[in-house]
């Protein structure tokens, strides 16, 4: 299948336990050749053959974009998740051959900014590691505010603080430390761009605070990959392929389409990029829109669906696929 664009065959070069929840995996080409160039904020989709179940999860590239000898990702173990992170924690070992996608950047730096203000929560630090490396090389002005539960889970916090000093601010929930967001947003010079990556609640908090503080929308950037939510089993007719398929409780619609051997477009697999947008030809029931892509009006029209994260409940759904 080629729905997600060109793939790269890679070998796992290194696996490092960063802390109790996060492990870092480094991929290189088996022939030692260079990886495609990427920019800070880019992600790759890692393909997994999890004992017969095909998984594809997006992970931010955390390495220095100037280093094309390999890609590094940081995976936070989610014991209650669908299994992708558990697979990467339990079954991936150095020397293993895997397949990943070419890099895609949905969270790029706006290099016209005079200053880059970054707010990270937990594993949301990963795209910033690459962005900071990129900015440091360019002499760009940045400031990072990074919140985690406690010092033990503050991945890369000490390294960042040691290297970038006063530009890095660390906050630990267990110590009652909170980012003073109103004061932070009020004191930024004109031309500052704001970037946030972290848990859903943090992203919502930062975006709404920026909006009420008068920040222009185009100066506020965020990245949130949604995991496909589970739901009731449902049937879908793929009109162009002449197939009717069943989507399982813990399977996404996109995964079910792929499992049926139908080539469907995708990039982020997290409801953000818009690549998998599909026309709905018939719908007797309710589409559960879970994406960040379609507008409210498009969702209400019932004529589009994002199969990577959205589901259906009702009698019948017919897609142009």
């Amino acid at each position, binding site marked *: 299948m080629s729905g997600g664009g060109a793939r790269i065959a890679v070998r796992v070069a290194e696996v490092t336990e960063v802390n109790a929840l996060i492990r870092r995996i480094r991929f290189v080409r088996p022939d030692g050749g260079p990886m495609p160039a990427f920019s800070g904020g880019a992600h790759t989709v890692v393909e997994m053959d999890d004992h017969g179940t095909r998984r594809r999860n997006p992970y931010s590239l955390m390495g220095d974009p100037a280093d094309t000898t390999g890609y590094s990702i940081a995976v936070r173990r989610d014991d209650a998740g669908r299994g992708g992170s558990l697979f990467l924690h339990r079954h991936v070992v150095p020397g293993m051959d895997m397949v990943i996608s070419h890099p895609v950047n949905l969270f790029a730096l706006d290099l016209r900014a005079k200053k880059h203000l970054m707010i990270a929560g937990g594993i949301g630090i990963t795209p910033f590691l690459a962005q900071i490396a990129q900015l440091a090389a360019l002499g760009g002005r940045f400031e990072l505010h990074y919140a985690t539960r406690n010092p033990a889970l503050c991945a890369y916090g000490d390294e960042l603080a040691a290297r970038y000093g006063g530009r890095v601010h660390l906050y630990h929930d267990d110590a009652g430390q909170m980012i003073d967001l109103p004061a932070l*947003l009020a004191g930024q010079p004109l031309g500052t761009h704001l970037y946030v990556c972290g848990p859903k609640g943090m992203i919502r908090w930062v975006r709404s605070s920026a909006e*009420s503080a008068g920040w222009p929308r185009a100066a506020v950037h965020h990245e949130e990959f949604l995991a496909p939510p589970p739901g009731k089993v449902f049937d879908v007719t793929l009109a162009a392929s002449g197939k009717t398929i069943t989507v399982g409780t813990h399977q996404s619609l996109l995964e079910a389409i792929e499992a049926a051997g139908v080539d469907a477009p995708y990039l982020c697999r997290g409801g953000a990029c818009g690549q998998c947008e599909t026309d709905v030809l018939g719908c007797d029931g309710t589409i559960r829109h879970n994406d960040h892509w379609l507008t409210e009006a498009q969702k209400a029209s019932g004529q589009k669906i994002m199969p990577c994260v959205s589901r259906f409940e009702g009698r019948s759904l017919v897609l142009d696929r």
Partner: protein
Amino acid sequence: MAGPDAFGEGIWAKKKPGAQTGAAGMTKTVFPPSIPSRPTYGVLAPRPGPAHLMIADGDGAGAVLDLVGAGDAGMAAGSHLIYLPGPDGTDRTAELAALGLARFHRAPSFAAALPRLRKVLGDAHMGVQIYLAGSEGLIGQAQREVMEAGLPHDAVQTEHRGTTVRRVQCVHCKGITENVATDPFTCGHCGLALFVRDHYSRRIAAFQGVNIDAEDPGLVPPPVEKFR
């Protein structure tokens, strides 16, 4: 001859932009739909923010008066207005001075206002609301300064009022002619006869003027007053 119709901008339409007179006597212009490059303008509306920076010329005064009138009681105390007479000489300084804004500065020209504008932008913080009103030349040049300060181009509100004369760059010699009223017109720098396109550059803050008789030298249509 490869006429300018090739640009698809309907330039041979001899119609002037439709003008209508508002209730308060201000002139508002409805620009006909054109290519995406051609700037479009809205209506200034108060937005929450710690400070308000307004830059206006000529009849843009009317938009500022409406804006402050629509704002809450505290808006004037957080506002800084830079105002200059319009390209047609319209000067409504007295009405604006009576608004009681925290800061009001009248400049004789955009060039004279520029050092102050750059200083204000350099000292400003994110959250400041920026409003531009008046001629297209003023709006475009002020927007360029705002972009230079690092804000996205669509982070400012704009409202066109009054004169429709254009600021045009000759694509051949790169000279900029202000207050162009006719199409075609003679480049004030190199003397070529220029067709005024709707193709606009935000970076240069000017419409593009293209030689109209390049292929048939001397075959220049009579100038039509399209902007005023």
